[in-house]
């Protein structure tokens, strides 16, 4: 090793030790310290829209410093193959970034978790076989961590693929897993745990390692397959957390502190987001992962809607919107499905021009991932200070003339407050019913994800505009233009 002179301390008992010590050369310490600081700043700066893009820059530079530093430390490595890897990866990654429509962001996130987990699993496996059979073998402790790392990587890989498939509608949502799914899952987990213990005791059984990989892959499939499409965001966030943990564990194995830090940052981010989502839905982790939503106990649709639903045309809505003082738009999953955001923007412009105050009410779990609605509306050039969080806007519905609900359902369902037996009981909702008039744009009376009817649609002051989201808004705008 040409870098031996740079080293300042010995820390590894692993046979391939020399390689790992290099990360603790001056060069390694300096570049990894800088990269770690930049990653932290990156997340810090992301906290506010004003500094967020600086945060992305910091992350990019941090990554570049880390990679260049690593290449300089490990000069023994085959630069050719790394170059090949980087080129191929860029050729795949760049188009995915450039042409991915904003409505597909949830799928993209799932897919890239799969790639991240794949990388972790591959590297862990390579490291095992690299050490396996070497003079002093693998010590028990390292083996235990390595087994956990590869297991997490594998299950995150297949789990994320399933999540991707469900969100992209490649896997029908109706697939709910095998019979006795929970028993199978427990069986898989127990076998994986057992094999990990055996490997820890005698790390030499390479074939057991391969079995572990297979079990991990199968467990990921079985875990995510039965979960409904609308719960995917929570699952994706949890998988994000696992992927981070797996990177961190790899850092333990490889004596690489930057991996530990970046992995832990990633892991806590996934954890926090899934906690936020669960809290916004008033559900527990276990309920998301193993519970199935059960709509049997709530009132039937006929009871709720029977004869009480009033429907309206685009022209009616245009008339109602004429000359009002304040309008609040409530977007939901349907706006994303129908790609209505640009039409909404036209509506926003037209209302603002006429002196109407327009704001957007963003429920924390509207759509299919946290912040989903914000990204879509920002894409359509809505200024972000018009996007209000639930707590902020809820008190103002009383002073609102018209609330326009576009493709949202569960997040405006008053049953959450009134029916303790409903599956969304206790979930905080947007109180659109307090507005003078409520206009709901959706294609039918079919329920949202929770599968329950929505008394809002039958309320005294509600008008239904049954239409695809985008078409409805385009029509309303056209009708307003005509009337003017």
């Amino acid at each position, binding site marked *: 090793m040409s870098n031996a002179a740079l080293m300042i301390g010995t820390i590894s008992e692993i046979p391939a030790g020399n390689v790992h010590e290099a990360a603790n050369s001056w060069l390694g310490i300096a570049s990894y310290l800088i990269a770690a600081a930049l990653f932290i700043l990156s997340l810090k700066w992301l906290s506010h829209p004003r500094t*967020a893009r600086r945060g992305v820059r910091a992350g990019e530079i941090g990554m570049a410093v880390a990679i260049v530093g690593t*290449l300089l430390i490990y000069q023994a490595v085959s630069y050719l193959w790394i170059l090949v890897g980087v080129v191929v990866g860029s050729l795949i990654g760049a188009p995915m970034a450039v042409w991915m429509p904003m409505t597909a962001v949830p799928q993209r996130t799932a897919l890239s978790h799969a790639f991240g987990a794949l990388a972790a699993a591959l590297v862990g496996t390579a490291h095992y076989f690299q050490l396996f059979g070497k003079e002093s073998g693998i010590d028990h402790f390292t083996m235990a961590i390595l087994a956990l790392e590869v297991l997490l990587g594998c299950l995150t890989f297949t789990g994320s693929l399933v999540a991707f498939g469900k969100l992209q509608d490649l896997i029908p949502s109706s697939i709910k897993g095998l019979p006795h799914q929970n028993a199978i899952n427990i069986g898989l987990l127990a076998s994986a745990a057992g094999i990990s213990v055996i490997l820890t005791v005698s790390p030499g059984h390479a074939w057991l390692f391969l079995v572990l990989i297979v079990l991990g892959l199968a467990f990921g499939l079985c875990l995510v397959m039965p979960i409904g499409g609308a719960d995917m965001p929570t699952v994706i966030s949890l998988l994000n957390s696992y992927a981070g943990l797996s990177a961190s564990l790899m850092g333990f194995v490889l004596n690489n502190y930057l991996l*530990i830090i970046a992995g832990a940052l990633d892991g806590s981010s996934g954890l926090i987001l899934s906690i936020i989502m669960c809290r916004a839905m008033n559900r527990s982790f276990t309920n998301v992962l193993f519970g199935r939503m059960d709509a049997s106990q709530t009132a039937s649709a006929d009871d709720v809607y029977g004869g009480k639903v009033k429907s309206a045309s685009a022209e009616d809505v245009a008339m109602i919107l004429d000359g009002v003082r304040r309008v609040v738009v409530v977007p939901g999953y349907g706006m994303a499905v129908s790609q209505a955001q640009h039409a909404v923007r036209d509506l926003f412009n037209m209302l603002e021009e006429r002196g109407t105050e327009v704001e957007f009410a963003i429920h924390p779990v509207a759509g299919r991932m946290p912040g989903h609605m914000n990204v879509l509306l920002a894409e359509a050039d809505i200024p972000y200070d018009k996007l209000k969080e639930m707590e902020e806007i809820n008190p103002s519905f009383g002073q609102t003339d018209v609330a326009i609900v576009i493709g949202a359902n569960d997040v405006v369902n008053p049953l959450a407050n009134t029916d303790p037996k409903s599956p969304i009981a206790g979930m905080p909702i947007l109180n659109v019913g307090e507005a003078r008039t409520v206009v709901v744009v959706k294609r039918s009376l079919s329920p949202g994800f929770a599968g329950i009817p929505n008394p809002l649609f039958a309320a005294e002051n509600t008008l239904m505009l049954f239409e695809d989201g985008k078409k409805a808004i385009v029509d309303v705008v056209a009708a307003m233009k005509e009337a003017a």
Partner: protein
Amino acid sequence: MDLGPKLFVFLLSTFLGLEVIRRVSPLLHTPLMSLTNAISAISIVAAIQVMAEGNTTFNTVLCTLGVVAATINIVGGFWITDRMLKMFRRETNNRE
């Protein structure tokens, strides 16, 4: 293994991550997910390090695949985050 320092680093990073990310405005939760996704592609460093451990074909192939997968996330993750953030504006009149 030298576990102590690593556990300290893990503990501190987790606390720091929880602290920093709790402050991220809900407005930006989607970009946050793609940014952390890009940062977690730091496993490219692990791929390079393990590749340096030995040059059997098996090792090289696995690590190269690891580099490919991680690079996809680096390129894709940072890029799409920036694409999203570019769209967030306070005032309306910048485009059109």
